[in-house]
């Protein structure tokens, strides 16, 4: 342990702690811009500088380790002066003028720069803003980049490379002409970007955001000739309350349903329903592959960021990927066939909207293989915008229930929103279908939690099934490399985002580890409190197979619920 003094507070911290972390423990907030937990230290913005007794120069607290007997001042007059000057320069490069109006920025509600400005107490801006005049990168179906707002903190670069193992962004040039760009300046949509949106969560400014579709949804809602239905992904219900000031981890399922009805959707359904359906189809596929010596391990296919990752980076493994469409796409397919036929709705008049914690879903929805299924895919953030635009006081609404049939789901579907959840849901069902006996304990604790890589095994009918779970694409890469080196599994769940969909690139900001943990707990609470906790016991799932689909893995299912992938190269 190391003893030191920060702003007159004597504290003791472990060796190897940075001054920034130690200050946090002493309840002192130092402004940071290029620092982000989970990422390597860059030490570039210098906003976090502090004064250390006996040292001539100010030191960046994010990159300086504590030492025995250190005396640190985090907000001395010199520090405050320097910080203010630095911030003015950063702000100038962010081009705050009428072109980049804060009012119209994607981050108007939660901009790091504005928070820092308030913390530092900026009262004037002496440096004239730089008009960098770069073009907006609109090459992607999912992500937009506005380089004029970029302050070159490098967080997106590190997030994409270190956490996602992809590496889309880089800096080019040096000094004041440094820019953040992509390979050969091609634009995000023309390189191997997975659309996961993790870079959006890392960006302290509005330089990165999703491609917005909510205006199209407003148009559809106001069009009298259209029948507009909506589906909500599992992870949205534990995050939608956050932009309205509620504590992270607040479960707002019923209030979200009520708000969606008020927005004017004709039917409010649940992606959970097709999550249960996914388990039936994917579980059947797993059993078939095991019984018929098919390609193993089977890889899950729910996460479109993961799918694009493997298509670019590991195409040699594509035949491991389940042919099941993701729950979002299955929902679209079922709505436009079964639901439309049952209710005599012309397919052309039916608009399917999805609310997703995900930016990659936007790309998935326009994939050639299945672009008919879902018309508009919105992020949780976009839904919160619509609710605000409509003046709906969501947190004070009475809970309402999803509409019947496509709105009924089990707890197994809820946990799809968390890393390990798809695996657990599949095991609950596969075990009972194969053995014909009921599971004593349906909680598979070793695949739960925020850890990036998890492994476990289950014995089903004397056969040991080895499973693994990876979240965050960097971890997906590690697991695939392990397989290359001979490690064997039967079934692997992959999710592109750290923590799974609860930490999705379309979720509300901020998204710290602590917030992710709370969302995850909330998801497992929903499951625990549900009576129905296994996908194969969902009565509406039984009904749709009886009435319409026939058998899991059968002909009709294959036509509607399954898809294929393609090698994309780098």
């Amino acid at each position: 342990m190391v003893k030191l003094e920060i702003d007159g507070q004597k504290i003791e911290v472990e060796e190897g702690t940075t001054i920034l972390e130690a200050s946090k423990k002493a309840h002192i907030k130092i402004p940071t811009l290029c620092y982000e937990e989970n990422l390597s230290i860059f030490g570039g913005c210098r906003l976090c500088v502090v004064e250390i007794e006996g040292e001539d120069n100010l030191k960046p607290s994010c990159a300086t380790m504590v030492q025995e007997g250190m005396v640190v001042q985090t907000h001395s007059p010199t520090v405050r002066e320097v910080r203010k000057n630095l911030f003015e320069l950063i702000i100038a490069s962010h081009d705050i003028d009428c072109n980049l109006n804060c009012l119209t920025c994607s981050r108007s509600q939660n901009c790091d720069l504005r928070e820092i400005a308030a913390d530092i107490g900026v009262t004037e801006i002496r440096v004239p803003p730089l008009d960098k005049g770069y073009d907006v990168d609109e090459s992607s179906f999912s992500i937009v980049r506005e380089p004029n707002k970029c302050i070159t903190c490098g967080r997106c670069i590190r997030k994409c490379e270190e956490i996602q193992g992809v590496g889309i962004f880089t800096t080019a040039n040096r000094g004041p002409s440094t820019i953040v760009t992509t390979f050969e300046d091609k634009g995000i949509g023309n390189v191997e970007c997975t659309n996961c949106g993790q870079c959006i969560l890392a960006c302290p400014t509005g330089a990165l955001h999703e491609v917005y579709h909510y205006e199209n949804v407003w148009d559809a809602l106001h069009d009298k000739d259209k029948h507009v239905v909506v589906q909500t992904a599992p992870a949205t219900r534990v995050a939608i309350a956050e932009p309205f000031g509620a504590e992270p981890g607040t479960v707002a399922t019923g209030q979200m349903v009520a708000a969606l009805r008020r927005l004017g959707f004709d039917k409010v359904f649940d992606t959970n329903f097709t999550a249960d359906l996914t388990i039936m189809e994917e579980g059947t596929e797993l059993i078939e592959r095991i019984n018929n010596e098919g390609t193993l391990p089977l890889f899950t296919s729910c996460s479109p960021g993961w799918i694009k990752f493997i298509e670019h980076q590991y195409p040699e493994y594509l035949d491991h990927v389940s042919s099941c469409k993701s729950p979002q796409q299955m929902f679209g397919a079922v709505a436009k066939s079964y639901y439309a036929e049952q209710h005599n709705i012309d397919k052309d008049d039916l608009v399917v909207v999805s609310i997703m914690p995900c930016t990659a879903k936007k790309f998935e929805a326009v994939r050639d293989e299945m672009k008919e299924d879902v018309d508009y895919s919105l992020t949780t953030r976009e839904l919160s915008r619509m609710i605000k635009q409509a003046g709906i006081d969501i947190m004070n609404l009475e809970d309402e229930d999803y509409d019947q049939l496509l709105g009924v789901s089990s707890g197994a579907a809820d946990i799809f929103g968390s890393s390990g959840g798809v695996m657990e849901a599949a095991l609950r069902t596969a075990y009972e279908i194969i053995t014909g006996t009921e599971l004593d304990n349906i909680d598979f604790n070793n695949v739960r939690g925020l850890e990036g890589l998890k492994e476990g095994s289950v014995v089903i009918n004397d056969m040991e099934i080895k499973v693994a779970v990876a979240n965050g694409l960097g971890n997906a890469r590690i697991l695939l490399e392990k397989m290359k080196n001979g490690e064997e599994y039967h079934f692997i769940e992959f999710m592109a985002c750290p923590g799974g969909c609860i930490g999705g690139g379309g979720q509300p900001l901020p998204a710290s580890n602590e917030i992710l943990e709370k969302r995850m707990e909330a998801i497992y609470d929903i499951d625990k409190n549900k009576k129905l906790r296994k996908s194969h016991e969902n009565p509406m799932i039984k009904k749709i197979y009886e009435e319409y689909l026939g058998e899991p893995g059968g002909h009709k299912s294959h036509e509607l619920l399954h898809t294929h992938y393609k090698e994309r190269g780098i």
Partner: protein
Amino acid sequence: MNSDKFLDRAHDIQDTYGYIPEGEIDKMAKEFDVPRAKVYGSIRFYSMFYTEPTGKYIIRVCDSLSCHINDSKSIVDSIKNYLGIDDGETTENKKFTLEVVECLGHCGEGPVMMVNDEMYTHVSKNMALDIIKDCT
């Protein structure tokens, strides 16, 4: 990434092609096991590397402090005018590329310019244009 090895590779490629083509960056990314954006960014960090084909003659005019004081700007402007290209651009016939650069190491003899490996000091506007006209 071993940076000596990296720079050696980049120089070799540039010596072969006159610039560093996309496909070569892909190969370097595999060789050094890093994302191709990173290779691209590292190359763009150094002003001596090109990611696009350059002209037969690369004209570099220094605009560091001491040359700037000796009116290097007017030289840059007259070259721009004469060739009809901007800083960093190449003429359509692929003959000339113009680059305004930092210090060429002859601060006492400014303004200075280089054409490929040839250094010229105490350059005037007319001299600059004559040098260019002499390039065949």
